[in-house]
């Protein structure tokens, strides 16, 4: 167990192992997203109330899912780095921040675009939307902290503390649609209940959600790999990798 933990903590081991899996993951991600996109845009039935604007759900919901799940990844990686001083965990935390920020941005922008034909406005200070904006600021805060220290260790410690404190926001986001029933509709999918959507609409959404999970993993690995290569560029194994042009 501990040996496995130590190996996983080694950036070199991670770089070389992930290189083997990467093409497969990229292929699966591309196929899932393409299938989900075509299905959702052209073949899912239109919504009786919202018409075709509802098709935005196929990116809005998966992006929001991953914006939230990505925060767990960042905070847990931060905690592991803080407790066990694992270098790789710090790199994962750093890599998760811009990715999470981009997905939160996509969730907010697609939500705003969807809001115009559905609610008649791009923006309201609704509880769900406001707490998602706070999430974006938390991600951006971690990114800013990473750049504001000259010492890498200090930057990692500060970012890990911020991401752990920011965890308070996550249950607020989840519960916001139930606590404050303002404008945002309640969750379409819950793990504890059957989906309220028609299967013809739900299946492409499921494909997109799985596709976004794969996409998240793919970009997180790509980010972490480039971070590893950058930080370890003076080590002999990186020189070997570059010389032999390994993936």
């Amino acid at each position, binding site marked *: 167990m501990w040996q496995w933990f130590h190996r996983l903590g080694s950036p070199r081991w991670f770089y070389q192992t992930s290189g083997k899996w990467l093409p497969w993951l990229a292929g699966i991600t591309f196929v899932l997203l393409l299938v989900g*996109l075509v*299905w959702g*845009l*052209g*073949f*899912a*039935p*239109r919504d009786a109330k919202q*018409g*075709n*604007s509802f*098709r*935005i759900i196929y*990116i*809005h919901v998966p*992006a929001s899912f991953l914006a939230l799940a990505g925060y767990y990844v960042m905070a847990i990686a931060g905690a592991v780095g803080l407790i066990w001083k694992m270098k790789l965990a710090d790199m994962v935390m750093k890599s998760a921040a*811009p*990715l999470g920020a*981009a997905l939160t*941005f*996509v969730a907010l*922008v*697609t939500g705003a*675009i*969807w809001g*115009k*034909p559905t609610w008649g406005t791009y923006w309201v200070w609704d509880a769900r939307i406001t707490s998602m904006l706070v999430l974006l600021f938390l991600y951006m805060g971690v990114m800013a902290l990473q750049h504001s220290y000259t010492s890498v260790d200090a930057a990692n410690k500060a970012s890990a503390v911020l991401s752990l404190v920011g965890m308070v926001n996550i249950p607020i986001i989840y519960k916001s649609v139930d606590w404050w029933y303002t404008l945002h509709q309640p969750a379409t999918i819950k793990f504890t209940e059957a989906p309220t959507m028609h299967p013809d609409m739900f299946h492409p959404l499921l494909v997109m959600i799985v596709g976004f999970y794969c*996409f998240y993993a*793919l*970009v997180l690995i*790509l*980010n972490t*790999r*480039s971070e590893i*290569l*950058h930080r370890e*560029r003076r080590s002999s194994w*990186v*020189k070997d990798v*570059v*010389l032999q042009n390994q993936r």
Partner: protein
Amino acid sequence: MIFRFDSFQHFLQMDGHGGYVWSAYLIAILVMVWLVAGPLFRQSRVRQTVTRELRRETARHHSAGEAGKE
């Protein structure tokens, strides 16, 4: 499973919601392409730097070796 639009024109317009739907998808796709391209560019930049340093190192070794002969 059937295609829900009778023409390509209809598919683009989406009964007046086309602008919303397509702009949302376009923004998402652009962000996602950028997310993948970013780390790939960064990797190739680091690799170039390492290659340059290695070349400089071998050149230095070379000239040091020649200096030793004299």
